[in-house]
């Protein structure tokens, strides 16, 4: 095991940003540690500077303001699961949180850590994408406010600059919307998603007045499936509609990801997953 050279625990955000500025690319952020420790065991990060941000109070923000939810990047998944506020205003995200890892992992792993790791299979990301989440990145030099999608540059490649710290997310409230998160995996806990789907929908007079869908583990980074949303918008979907939507979903997925060994399975399973995930919308009637 390669151990890091030094450990710092800044007591507040300002000091943290100063430290990050000074350390630049040598800084390794330690929040929940669930990804970091695994990487260190693999021999990476020897000689780096650990910056422990797990106790920064500024990263534990959780509030509703002007129809927007602000979530600190340091919130653990257990904290997310325990929040009545989030249950109301970010239902897909909360459902996703319950399916991450194990209880031990959820107790320490953070939303920010999960996003920044940029795994194609990150469970929290689809739930953020369907709420047009924005990430607030702070540094000594200032603040950047970017859509979460922009941070997901590629598999395990984040768009965060040296010296920057992702401090919080802003989400449009999904209050009143129906939300779901479905994860397809090889076992019921401690499993990486084979495919995942986050859905938010609102019924209007003539059909769905709002529908948002994000796919995880199907493309190099999770993404909103706007084409599917456009297809379903305004419809009071029948099962047939869902099958067609599934076809659009799978088609777009293959277009973005290209043909891979897993495509034979995933292109069907993606359709199946969408139909299953959105079936309750059909039952609710027109």
């Amino acid at each position, binding site marked *: *095991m390669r151990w890091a050279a030094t450990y710092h625990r800044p007591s507040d955000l300002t000091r943290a940003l100063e430290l990050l500025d000074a350390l630049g690319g040598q800084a390794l952020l330690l929040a929940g540690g669930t990804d970091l420790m*695994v990487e260190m065991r693999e021999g990476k990060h020897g000689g780096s500077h650990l910056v422990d941000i797990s106790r920064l109070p500024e990263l534990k923000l959780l509030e509703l303001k002007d129809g927007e939810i602000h979530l600190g990047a340091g919130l653990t998944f257990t904290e997310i699961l325990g929040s009545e506020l989030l249950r109301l205003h970010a239902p897909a995200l909360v459902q996703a949180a319950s399916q991450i890892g*194990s209880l031990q992992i959820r107790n320490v792993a953070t939303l920010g850590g999960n996003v920044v790791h940029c795994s194609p299979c990150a469970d929290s990301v689809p739930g953020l994408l369907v709420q047009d989440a924005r990430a607030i990145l702070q540094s000594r030099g200032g603040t950047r406010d970017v859509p979460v999608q922009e941070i997901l540059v590629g598999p395990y490649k984040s768009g965060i600059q040296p010296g920057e710290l992702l401090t919080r997310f802003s989400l449009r409230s999904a209050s009143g919307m129906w939300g779901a998160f479905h994860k*397809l995996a*090889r*076992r*019921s*806990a*401690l*499993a*990486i998603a*084979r495919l995942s789907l986050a859905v938010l929908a609102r019924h209007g007079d003539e059909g769905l007045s709002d529908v948002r869908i994000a796919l995880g583990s199907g493309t190099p980074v999770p993404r909103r499936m706007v084409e599917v949303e456009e297809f379903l918008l305004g419809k009071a979907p029948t099962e047939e509609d869902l*099958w067609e939507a*599934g*076809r659009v979903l*799978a*088609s777009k997925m*293959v277009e973005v990801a290209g043909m891979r060994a897993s495509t*034979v*399975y995933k*292109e*069907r*399973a993606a*359709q*199946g*997953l969408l*139909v*299953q995930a959105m079936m309750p919308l059909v039952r609710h009637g027109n």
Partner: protein
Amino acid sequence: MEWISRSVPRIGALERLRGMPIFGGDIQLEDCLVLRVLRSHRPHARILELEVEEARKIQGVEGVFTARDIPGKNLIGLITKDQPLLAQDRVRFVGDPVALVAARDEESAQRGLEAIRVRYQDLPAIFSPEEALAEGAVAIHQEGNLLHRRVVRKGDVASAMERAAVVVERTYRTPHIEHAYLEPDAGVGYLEWDGTLVILASTQNPHYDQKEVAGLLGLQEEKVRVIQAATGGGFGSKLDLTVQGFIGLALYHLGKPVRLVFSREEAYLATPKRHPLTIWMRTGADSTGKLLALQARIVCDTGAYSSYGVAVATRAAIHATGPYQVENVEVESLAVYTNNPIAGAMRGFGVPQVAFAHESQMDILARELGMDPLQIRRRNALQEGSSTATGQKLGSSVGILECLEALEPHYREAMSSWKGSGDSRYVRRGVGLGAMWYGIGNTGVQNPSTARVELDEDGRVTLFTGAADMGQGSTTVLAQIAAQVLGIQPDRLRLVVADTARTSNAGASSASRQTYISGNAVLEACTKLAQVLLTEASDLLRAPKDTLLLKGEHVADSRDPQRRVSFMELARRARKKNIPLSWQGYFDPETTPLDPETGQGIPYATYAFACQLAQVEVDVLTGRVSVRRIVAAHDVGRAVHPEAVKGQILGGVAMGLGFALMEEFVPGSTASMKDYYIPTARDMPEVLPIIVEAAEPSGPFGAKGVGEPALIPTAPAILNGIADALGERVYALPANLERVLEASIRAGHFPDREVN
């Protein structure tokens, strides 16, 4: 009976509950050196150069050893000795050990490892048995790539097939499976004051370890002492040498305390796996569902070295019929070398794989004949007096019919009310059965056990057994047997377990043999001691022996229990008369070797039988399978400790569920625990274990065994359940998302939607 059929507190549970430092990796020795093994990263290569001088000079490194430093014979193996401890001139799989580093701490050991220079010249590498058997394939071992061929032949298969009303022919495949015991292999060693090498290791067979290490080092066996440390699961993987040989070698040269603890990654890379099997099977039955003939060709990928390959190929052949009477049998089973990881013993030795095949066949036959799956099994079930595929006439302990009967009400209920009451169009329910039989003990060879019991002058009884308990509970069961015979509470017994200096060989904890074989050895030893006590007491109490009983560490007159004498007093009297108070027991099952041409013979003295039922839900749109319930009826002869038997069944079902649905070790790809899925608590269904007791006359109090049987029926039952749900089958394990969805599509359950 006071101590049999009783779930007494498990011996050893307390220490584990308190977190005491008893496992190989917990034992702390002062000034202990750390060992690390350098392993090949090439699958098949000649070693052109192996340079360790630089490594030897690294600060903190105290020794670097290669094959040249092995003083005895550098060849090990459980059946065939074809494996070097450290590669001589060739490596045969990725992970093959090449050198050993001993250093003061982890960092120096790592640096020492990195300073070793190896140059390999790749040889053609073979990754499938088919390639290995092909004309012109490179020989992985001198004698060629076929390790073993076992044939079981009886009757006239060809003409029987012609008479058959239905013939089903299919090919089944199973992958490499990892034991995934929770405790990565670990051990420590030190030199005793008299020069004895003492090794404490996680192991299933300390006496084998002792013998093998002594051979490697050219020492007398008594100069090597192996003590089983608390062992965190084994399931067959800890039968081969893992850490013991390396510890011995370092001790031999350095004389300093050493420890070797595998990381999980190293355990995955370096230790044996379950054999992948390809099973081609052809079964013929008449119109009433009676099996007429079975033909099978089984190919087992035994990997780079033989380990238990011979036993696996043989067991697979013997058990290929399933627990059914079949008069005409033709089975050929091959164990083939490849450059894949070593395949060795894993819970079931080829029978879990072959049961998947024979049980699938039974269901397919049933479907073609329009027969009920329970009925077709009943029609063919082995009974007392039946003749097996190897021509063995079975005795009275054949409980398969009873198991089927025990399942029947559950099966009927599941089929009639549960199956039809699913509420989702896209989740289909299915019910499947899986039956099995399993021979107890090593196949057709001697595999005796011995035990010793001793009474001291204070009247304390000590039981000495070499049987390694790796969590299955053998120590407790053996203590119960001793307790029963001697009329003493199990927790009053002193126990000395699995220490080659103090216990004699009980054979390996494998083949589900310890209750039956060591149990009998303990029974014999204790019976002898009991006789001595009864004789003495009879003399003292002036009462006939048959009126006396042993209870509470006394011998009492059953007609007047106040008249009694303590063990202590009897011991003293016996001592004065020079009557021995230490008695040995011995038991070897009655078997005969199998005929090399026909496989006919008596491979086992007794068999366990079982049938399990699985209720499954299959998501036809994604391939997800959810097992809702398993009912497991197991004939164990006699459940000496019912809760331990249930524990084995529950654990076996979990392992079987993993085998069925989610486990697949892919050499080169499966590197750590995040790559290999065993069931979590959330994956487990409701499990109802049912203990069936068809007493085995030759077993201690009628007991047989359950360790491996527990696992065997589960995957077949689940796979049959999936087939019942979908109407199409999966023929390769695991029945993972991809395979199940593919079957669902084949069956027409996935509405056809071209994606373009």
